[in-house]
């Protein structure tokens, strides 16, 4: 599949590639969309979202899950803030399952699992953790550990059995897979492409992520995400009155 087919060239805003194990942050304004493309297969993208204008309003895992009765994310689901508003909507997805539960590994986890790979010896192939990557990006915007809340892991799949035991499913995302996030608020996005903490792979080999931003169509009354659940109609209402 060609990751750029549905984006009209006149709407394209910018493109950027994020190194495997790297981190990125930026502002996506209401009315823009961001495509996240798994360039190499098996990428994990730990993501957090904040209202750019009042960063105490932030992505809320529990509200996102319980409002939509889900433990995974795909097309139709939206990412809720703690204020009952929609930060962004998943308007396209070739993957089918994104993990909102597994969290991020910290530096101790990464060293224990993959050994120590410092900059001194490995230059930019050094191992980095998702937690540290997110903290670096948050630091650029005056945020820190207190602002680091439960995150989404795009492209990764973790399933629970009846007893609640978690299992990471390798091969969930292939090279070329993508999802599109449409931003319903002016949103600060922080990302890390470090490995998922439950990824059983013994090699530190995180893949690259391509970001493509464009001007999106405004969600109409018949919008798929708005109508995906009755809760989402109210979530969109709460969001839209902020901009009236």
């Amino acid at each position, binding site marked *: 599949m060609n990751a750029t087919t549905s984006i009209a060239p006149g709407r394209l805003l910018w493109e950027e590639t994020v190194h495997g194990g790297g981190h990125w942050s930026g502002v996506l304004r209401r009315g823009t969309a961001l495509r996240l493309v798994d360039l190499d297969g098996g990428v994990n993208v730990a993501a957090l979202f904040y209202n750019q204008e009042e960063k105490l309003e932030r992505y809320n*895992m529990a509200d996102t899950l319980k*409002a939509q*009765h889900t*433990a995974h994310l795909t097309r139709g689901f939206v990412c809720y803030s703690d204020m*009952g508003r929609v930060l962004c909507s998943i308007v396209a997805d070739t993957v089918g399952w994104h993990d909102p*539960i597994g969290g991020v590994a910290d530096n101790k986890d990464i060293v224990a699992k993959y050994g120590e790979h410092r900059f001194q010896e490995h230059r930019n192939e050094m191992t980095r953790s998702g937690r540290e990557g997110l903290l670096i990006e948050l630091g650029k915007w005056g945020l820190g550990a207190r602002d*680091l809340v*439960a995150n989404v892991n795009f492209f990764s799949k973790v399933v629970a059995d009846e*007893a609640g035991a978690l299992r990471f499913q390798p091969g969930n995302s292939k090279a070329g897979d993508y999802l599109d996030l449409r931003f319903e608020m002016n949103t600060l996005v922080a990302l890390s492409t470090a490995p998922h903490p439950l990824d059983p792979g013994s090699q530190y080999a995180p893949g690259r992520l391509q970001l493509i931003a464009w001007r999106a169509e405004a969600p109409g009354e018949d919008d798929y995400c708005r109508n995906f659940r009755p809760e989402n109609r109210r979530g969109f209402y709460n969001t839209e009155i902020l901009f009236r």
Partner: protein
Amino acid sequence: MGANTIQPSNLDPATAVYDFTLPAGEPWMHEIKRGQTLRIVDLEGNQAVDTLFFGARDPAERYSAQDTVRRQGNVYLTTGSALMSNEGNVMLRIVADTCGRHDTLGGACAAESNTVRYALDKKHMHNCRDNFLTALARWGHRYGMTKRDIPANINFFMNVPVTGSGGLTFEDGVSAPGKYVEMRAEMDVIALISNCPQLNNPCNAYNPTPIRLLVWDA
């Protein structure tokens, strides 16, 4: 872990150093010292107890639902669960549990999320986030804590199963009158509880009820 691991306690309420009954819909904030044991008793059954823990020396270290779940490889809390901080440290361990399963994915109710989940006109109803903010307004200045410090919490006595197909369901409770959960502190912590006032969810039979909180010294 995660299967129902019923484990009663030998501790005698008569020897507790703290014994308090918290009415429904009230906040509670209390320091638990390393080595002390906190018991939460579901007095009337299926009462949601929204609970957070913070490091007493540095409240920026706090309970992390995702770290707890991923490190134990299981979404439910019960006997043996280590309640992990965002810094990767064990804050408390669940040492007894007569309920068998507790939720840490469903989070707290809030005025704003109630408008999304139920109806726009539910915004006025009392909720756990207001309780957390009430507690921080009353006592949070001692620790420099604000809304910024409120992450995803534990819902003791709530049964919120994750299905194999990735659904999240709110099932009838597995708790009952008198069931309790007990946890031993591995560091000095501040416990923050909202005894949930939710009136829109059948999980508590639309009837929030009191809980009993007991603390024993090491």
